[in-house]
């Protein structure tokens, strides 16, 4: 089992969610985050003083998937979230040691 963490541009969230749903990914956790990579911020002006807004709003999407679903999920996210411009984001894949469904107590791939 793997945890796929994707940092995306916020306006891509709905489309990525739909694409994941289409390939059979049932659950998703979404957080609003800030960050930057190669995409620089922008300057704002307040009463004559300029300041740089470095951190850009992004969305973090986390999905727990079985090993077979890792590649399809990455492909779906990449296809939908890419705009070709700097700031599209990144995907991190980390191993998932254990998954438990709280309601029923199921563990492992049955819990995904």
């Amino acid at each position, binding site marked *: 089992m793997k945890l796929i963490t994707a940092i995306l541009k916020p306006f891509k969230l709905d489309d990525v969610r739909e694409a994941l749903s289409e390939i059979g990914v049932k659950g998703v956790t979404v957080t609003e985050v800030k960050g930057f990579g190669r995409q620089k911020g922008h300057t*704002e*002006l*307040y*009463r*004559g*003083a*300029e*300041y740089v807004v470095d951190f850009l709003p992004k969305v973090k999407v986390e999905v727990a998937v079985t090993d077979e679903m890792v590649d399809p999920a990455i492909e779906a996210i990449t296809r939908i979230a890419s705009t070709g411009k700097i700031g599209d984001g990144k995907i991190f894949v980390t191993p998932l040691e254990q998954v438990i469904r709280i309601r029923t107590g199921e563990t492992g791939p049955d819990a995904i």
Partner: protein
Amino acid sequence: MQNQIFELQYALDTFYFLICGALVMWMAAGFAMLEAGLVRSKNTTEILAKNVGLFAIACTMYMICGYSFMYGGDFFLNGIAGNESLVPDALAASAENGFGGDSVYSTASDFFFQVVFVATCMSIVSGAVAERMKLWAFFAFAVVMTGFIYPMEGGWTWGGNDVFGLFNLGDLGFSDFAGSGIVHMAGAAAALAGVLLLGARKGKYGKNGEVRAIPGANLPLATLGTFILWMGWFGFNGGSVLKLGDIASANSVAMVFLNTNAAAAGGAIGALVLARLIFGRADLTMLLNGALAGLVAITAEPLTPTPLLATIFGMMAGIIVVASILAMDKIKIDDPVGAISVHGVVGFFGLMLVPLTNPSATFLGQLAGAGVIFFWVFICSLIVWSILKAVFGIRISEEEEYEGADLSECGQEAYPEFVK
């Protein structure tokens, strides 16, 4: 029949005074919203508490002793409700003047109109010292300012008293219709004294003189506050005509409303254009300050200018205020809402405009009045702030400033559900 007409005049003039007083009271909401919008969210509750508190203190101190210092009469407004001889006396006085003379109205309405001006003066200070002053130190200062400092200079001007019994500003040709100097510049003088002793907000100025932006949390509130102040100003200037109940007075009131509005519009345009030229963009906060600057500038004489002149005066004020705000930051005077610029620099400018359209005022008289007001308020304020600083301290600690004045002074946040 004559008496009935007179009684109607009296009632109308009293009513007018009360409505204008209510409009000026509404400016307290304007100041509160403007300041709440221009500070950071972690300091919002504290500045709102300051605004409501200072209004209450001003009303109370002015009632206890301020009105008496300024206009005479007993402490605690003893006897203000009048007695049985009031009506016949008033009737006789007005009959003498052929019903077109001095304003005659209820003394209680006079107090009501005056007290809201005191609160306006005091609220100018709250914006300049925002985000780093101890709440209770501010309240302590407010007690002295509204109970003594303002009433004294008000007595030397509107009250007609000699300055320390030595000379009379009215005789010198000083004229300040609704208080560009008496209310606005005075408030700014008290604010300046406070800010000098308080110091700038942490992080505002860099080591090499860079000015760092500390953006306000809620520009819709700031804008709402500005419009509320704009509307309240019709009462501020309009009520200062002091009379409505005859044709000449009604025309004056109409002219005052017209010019007041024109100056605000001019101020907004002046600030907008200058900000666009300097920054390349339209800074909303400068636009708001510009409109207010126009209002402050016309306050010393809203009756005699033509509408075009009132608009131009406003535009000049809008340009001056933008330049002043930038200059204040250059000399490291941190004023989060631009109060010292809007009310102090432009308040003085407003005073000096008066002789241009009002022949009974002289430049020398205006300078004398401005000097007396500024130095009296500034020096007294410096003394009071210094005492407060030495005895209790006037600034919250660095850690409290980082966490926000809301937590340290009020123990409650303005926006507790917002995730940071």
